[in-house]
C-alpha cells in the first residue's frame, strides 16, 4: 500500500514536471508608473494570449517605475541570472541599453515573421525614432505618451480667455487665472523637478529641440536659452506659476481635478484619470509657442539576451499579440496612452471612442507636432547635466545663458567617448 501511494506520487510529479517542461515560459517586467488600472489590463492580455497559445506561460512582473525595471534587468544579466525575456523600459534608454549589452535585437524574429515587415511599417514613425540603434531593431513602442496641455475649459470660457496658442497668451492666461498669489488657485502648474521632459516642448515650440542625435545636444542654442527664460518668466514676469523648482508631478493633476489649478502641462498618460475625476469640461491642446509642440514619451518593449530560440519566438509572439491594433486601441482608451499604430487610429473602435471622448482625439492629433524625447549616448550623464543647470536657472542661481553653457559643456564631456 505504502509503495503504491509513493509510486502514484512519483508518477504525478514526473507527469507534472513533464507537462511544465512542454510549456515555454516567458516573463515581462513591467513598470507600473501611473494611476491607471494597468496591472489588470495587462493580466487580461496575458490570459488571452495563454488561452490562444496553451504551450506558452506568460508571467508579468510588475515593479515600480522604468528605473526599477532597468535595475532589475541589469542585476539579473550582470549577476548571470535569468533575466525576464521582455522588459518595458524607457524608449530613450536604447543607446545605453545596447552599449551595456542589456538588450538583444528583434531583427531576426521580425524577419522570420511573414507579416513582420507590414507590422513594423504600421507602427507610428514618431514613436519608432527610439527603436533602432546602428540600424538594428531593439524596441517596439508600448505605453507611449506625449506631453500635453490640459485646461479647465469651463473656467477659461467663464473668464473669456482663449485657449493659449503662443507663449505670451499662455503667460498672460496663467497670470489672469491665478488667484491670491496661488493660495486659492494657480493659473498654471508644470513640474520643474528633473524638468527636461516637460521643458522640451517649450524648446521645440521655439524652433529648436534640445538635441539633434545620440551624440549632439543643443543645450546652449539661443532658442533653447530663450525657452528657459520663458519658463522662468511664467512665475517671475507673469506670476502665473509657482516660483522656483517645484515637484508638482503628482500633485498638479490632483490640483487640476479639484479646480485649484487652471492649466497643467503633463503626460497624456494621465488623461483617463483626469477625465474620471474632473467635474468640468477638460480641454487638451499642444504646448503653445511659435509653433504648437509636444514631445514623445514612454516606454518600448525590449528583448533581453541569453534566451533559447523557443523563448525568443514566444516572446516575439507575445509582443505581436499585445501590440495588435485591437489591443492598442483598448489600451489607449483605458489609460490615455497614445495609440502608436497607424491602423489603430483608423479603426472603428478608435473612431467610436473619440466621437465620445474628443480629448483623446486631441491627443492623437498632436502626433505630427511631436519632437523626439532626449535620447543620447550616456543618457544619464547628459540628462543630469541638463536637469542640474536648468534647475539652477529656475532657482535663480545662474542666468539661463550661463546655466545652459555649463550644461552644454558637461554633456559634451560625457559624449566625447562616443565621438
Amino acid at each position, binding site marked *: 500500500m505504502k509503495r503504491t501511494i509513493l509510486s502514484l506520487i512519483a508518477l504525478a510529479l514526473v507527469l507534472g514536471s513533464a507537462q511544465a517542461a512542454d510549456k515555454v515560459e516567458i516573463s515581462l517586467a513591467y513598470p507600473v508608473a501611473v494611476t491607471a488600472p494597468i496591472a489588470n489590463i495587462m493580466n487580461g492580455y496575458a490570459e488571452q494570449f495563454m488561452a490562444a497559445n496553451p504551450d506558452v506561460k506568460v508571467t508579468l512582473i510588475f515593479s515600480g517605475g522604468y528605473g526599477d525595471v532597468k535595475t532589475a534587468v541589469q542585476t539579473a544579466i550582470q549577476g548571470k541570472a535569468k533575466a525576464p525575456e521582455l522588459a518595458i523600459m524607457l524608449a530613450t534608454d536604447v543607446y545605453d541599453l545596447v*552599449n*551595456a549589452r542589456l538588450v538583444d535585437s528583434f531583427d531576426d524574429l521580425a524577419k522570420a515573421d511573414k507579416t513582420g515587415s507590414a507590422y513594423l511599417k504600421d507602427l507610428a514613425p514618431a514613436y519608432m525614432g527610439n527603436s533602432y540603434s546602428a540600424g538594428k531593431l531593439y524596441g517596439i513602442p508600448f505605453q507611449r505618451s506625449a506631453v500635453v496641455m490640459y485646461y479647465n475649459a469651463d473656467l477659461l470660457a467663464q473668464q473669456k480667455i482663449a485657449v493659449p496658442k503662443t507663449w505670451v497668451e499662455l503667460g498672460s492666461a496663467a497670470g489672469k487665472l491665478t488667484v491670491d498669489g496661488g493660495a486659492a488657485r494657480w493659473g498654471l502648474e508644470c513640474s520643474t523637478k528633473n524638468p527636461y521632459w516637460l521643458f522640451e516642448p517649450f524648446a521645440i515650440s521655439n524652433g529648436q529641440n534640445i538635441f539633434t542625435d545620440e551624440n549632439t545636444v543643443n543645450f546652449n542654442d539661443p532658442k533653447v536659452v530663450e525657452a528657459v527664460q520663458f519658463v522662468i518668466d511664467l512665475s517671475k514676469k507673469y506670476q502665473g506659476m509657482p516660483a522656483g523648482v517645484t*515637484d508638482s508631478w503628482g500633485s498638479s493633476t490632483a490640483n487640476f481635478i479639484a479646480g485649484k489649478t487652471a492649466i497643467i502641462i503633463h503626460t497624456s498618460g494621465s488623461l483617463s484619470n483626469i477625465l474620471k475625476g474632473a467635474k468640468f469640461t477638460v480641454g487638451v491642446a499642444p504646448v503653445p509657442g511659435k509653433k504648437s509642440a509636444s514631445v514623445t514619451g514612454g516606454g518600448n518593449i525590449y528583448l533581453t539576451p541569453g534566451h533559447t530560440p523557443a523563448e525568443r519566438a514566444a516572446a516575439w509572439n507575445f509582443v505581436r499579440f499585445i501590440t495588435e491594433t485591437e489591443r492598442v486601441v483598448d489600451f489607449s482608451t483605458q489609460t490615455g496612452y497614445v495609440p502608436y499604430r497607424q491602423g489603430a487610429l483608423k479603426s472603428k473602435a478608435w473612431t467610436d471612442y473619440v466621437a465620445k471622448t474628443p480629448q483623446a482625439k486631441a491627443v492623437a492629433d498632436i502626433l505630427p507636432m511631436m519632437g523626439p524625447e532626449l535620447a543620447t549616448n550616456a543618457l544619464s550623464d547628459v540628462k543630469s547635466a541638463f536637469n542640474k543647470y536648468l534647475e539652477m536657472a529656475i532657482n535663480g542661481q545662474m542666468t539661463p545663458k550661463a546655466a545652459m553653457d555649463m550644461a552644454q559643456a558637461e554633456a559634451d564631456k560625457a559624449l566625447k567617448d562616443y565621438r
Partner: protein
Amino acid sequence: MKRKPLLLPYILILPTFIFVTVFTLVPLGSSIAGSFFRQKLNVPKYHDPSWYGMGNYTDLFTDSTFLQVLRNTGLYVLATVPASLALALLLAVLLSGKFRGQTFFRLVIFHPAILPMVSAATLWLFFFTPGYGLLNQLLRLFGYTGPENWTGNPHMSLLSLCIVGIWKQTGFYMLFLLAGLQAVDKSVLEAARIDGAGGFPLFSRITFPLIRRSFLFTSTIAFIAAFQTVDHVFIVTLGGPSDSSNILLYYLWQLRFEKLNVGAANTVTVILVAVLLAFTITNFLASERHER
C-alpha cells in the same frame, strides 16, 4: 589538567566567519580591486575593465559634483548625528524616571523607528508640500512667512532630509541610552545625592560617565547610519535640486545603476568604507584608552 580542544572556538565562529567573508570581505575586496580599473558599461570601448591605476580616484576628486556630494554628506552627518544624539539623550533622561503615562510616551517617541524609512519620508513629503503642507501651515500659525518650498529650494533641500533623518532615528537611539540609564547602579546616584549633588552637575559628573559606553556605542551606530541612510533621498528630493541634497550613498547608486560607471562606483564604495572604518576605529580606540 586536561587541555580543552582548540578546535571548538573555530567551529563556533565559523558561521559568522563565512557570512562576513561572503557578504563583506569578498565584495569589499572586489570593490577595492575594481576601483583601479576603468569600466563604463555604456561606453563600448570601456565596457570591459581595463587598468586605470588611480584614475578613478583622480577623476572623482576633480569632479565638482562629487566634491559637492562629499560636502553635502559631511553636513548631513554633522547635522543629524549630534542633533539626534542630543535629543535622544534628553528624551532618555526625561523618560527614565517613573511617572504616569511613561509607557505611552516611550511608545510615541519610539514609533518612528519602527516605520520603514520610505513610509516616514512619504509622510514628511506631505508635510513639506508647498502651499498646503502641514509644516508650512504650522509655521504660519507663528507668523512665519518665509521660504515655503522646502524640497525645491537648494538652501533647504538638505535640511529637509536632515529633519526626516533626525525624526526617524532619535527614538531608536533613545532606546539604547534609556537602557544604559536603567543599568546605572541607583546606590551610586543615591550616594552622590547624599553628598549634595543634583541637577545638571549630577548628570554630567556621575550619570553621563556611567553611561559613556552606551553613548559611544550609540554614537557609532548613529554615525554609520547617517552614511547608510538613503531611502528618504529617493522619496523626498532625488538628490536635487541641482545636486544640493545629493549624498554619498545616493550618488553611489546613480553612478552604478544610472550612469553604469562601475569603476567610479567601486571607488566611491572604497571611500565610503574607509571613512566609516576610520571613524569606528578612532571611536573604539578612544573608548578603550578611556577605560584604561
